[in-house]
């Protein structure tokens, strides 16, 4: 009888251990660290960003890997078309052999996510209704879409300097 008890107990333990080991595969591994730089890392939201867009460069990703750069949208910031809790894509690029990448924001990205513009029926941005991003320090993340490597940096949005007082 004691032997039977021991066999049953061992079987239960084995089942539990097997189930737990199967589950272990779904536990997320910590993301590999990569490097990200935002250029420039301090901006005023204005028309100059359409001529000279914000750029990103990074390293430590996989060879020839696609990387997407996203902004973590703070809960208090409304972003049209983006659900609460979703990050918003700013740019994307493909790494070289060594896992380095460079990417610049396209005009649509600058208009949609920095100017937060509306679009007119003629497909032109309606800047009269734009709500530029409020001044703050925004977290930017670059993620390798194969390796899962993540680079982190910050972009500071600052207010435009007030015009010099008239003499």
């Amino acid at each position: 009888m004691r032997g039977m008890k021991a066999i049953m107990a061992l079987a239960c333990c084995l089942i539990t251990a097997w189930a737990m080991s199967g589950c272990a595969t779904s536990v997320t591994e910590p993301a590999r660290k990569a490097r990200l730089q935002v250029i420039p890392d301090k901006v005023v939201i204005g028309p100059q960003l359409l001529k000279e867009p914000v750029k990103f460069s990074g390293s430590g990703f996989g060879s020839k890997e696609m990387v997407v750069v996203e902004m973590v949208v703070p809960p208090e910031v409304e972003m049209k078309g983006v659900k609460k809790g979703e990050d918003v894509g700013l740019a994307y690029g493909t790494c070289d052999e060594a896992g380095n990448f460079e990417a610049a924001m396209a005009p649509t990205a600058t208009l949609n996510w920095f100017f937060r513009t509306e679009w007119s029926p003629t497909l032109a941005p309606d800047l009269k209704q734009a709500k530029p991003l409020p001044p703050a320090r925004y977290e930017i993340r670059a993620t390798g879409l194969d390796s899962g490597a993540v680079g982190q940096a910050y972009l500071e949005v600052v207010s435009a300097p007030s015009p010099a007082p008239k003499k």
Partner: protein
Amino acid sequence: MRKGGRKWIWAAATISLWVLTAMLPLGQAQEKYVTYLSLADYTGPIAGLNVPADMGVEDFFKDLNDRGGVEGVKVKFTGVDTRYDVARGVSAYKRYRTEHKLVLANAISTGIGKAVAPLTGRDKVVQLVPGDGEFQAKPGRVFTWGTCYQDAYAATMDWIMEDWKAKGKSGSPKVGYLQWDNPYGREPLRGGKEYMEKLGMSLLPPEFFPPGTLDHSVWLNRLASQNPDYIVIGGVDPTPTNVLRDAHKMGLTKRIQFVDATFWGPDETVGIKAHPEATEGAVICVYYLRGKEAREHPLAKRIWQKYRARPLEEMGSTYSTGMIWGLDLEAALKIALRQVGYDKLDGEAVFQAYMKLAGSDHRQGLAGNCTYGPDSRRGSDMVKFYRVQGAKLVPITGWRKAPDAVSLHKF
């Protein structure tokens, strides 16, 4: 066995069972479904085209699910507003690529389609794109919605030659081209230009303008000074309508025949409604039903009335185009489920099924035909022509085969 020992064994067995149940993947415990991802534009520059199209496919899936799905497997529609931005499209795909049984991603723009293609290829997910011939020239997992842009352009050249001869003219007409300055605007000429050479037709230097242009008279003036007989236009309505509005103001619509060769031209609910005089007489080449034919199609009409409960006149043309995406997926799921069953159903099985859709009549006449096959990523090789008459889109041809202009271009 003693009472205490038995209790101990039962307790251990119960805990084991609980652990096992908790470890079951979520999908197995819930209803059977697959995920359809739309990388869409609901509030950006081409929302006017995409909103009715996604309303159509979403309503179609609601109806399909209400009918029990495909052999009990339902379709979950996930729409993401990319605002026509490529980086947002890539980021959205990254977010949703691990959704339960994601089998298809539909990209609203050429740019998003091209950027996401390597990812859907790696994930073995079927991808849809508007009409870029490059995906037909280099077959992978990306399928075009309908006829490729260059094939439709070639069919437009055939129609122009017929129209020219029907007017009793000899030789070949002078043709101008005015389109958006982006990959979509240039795509029709990648093979279309070669087709013109084959026909002995010549093209005036093409003109391109930035999307969002308010006044097109600069480009129209430049083309008009070369005395074209026909001008091929494009863009998503209201752009083609605005080109016609400017041409009408300049008196050009009286002496030049304007033809929209890439499907998204003046619609009764958008441009034609706003500018009936300017759009009158314009011709449109499409791969799907337009106007009254689309609104009165039995499937489109039934589903519109069931889920929208608005007057039929308010149905945009692309509402029924969205249903073509739904009908294709329904037909592919039937094949895939027969082949592999639900447990093994994945993007690969659905991809294999898409390649078996050629010749099937599952589109119920909403498009001319379906040509997805082992060597074909084209959604269709048929087009139809409509003319704006009395502020309505009136068919002037039946379905006709579009020439293969993709094969004439080196990609």
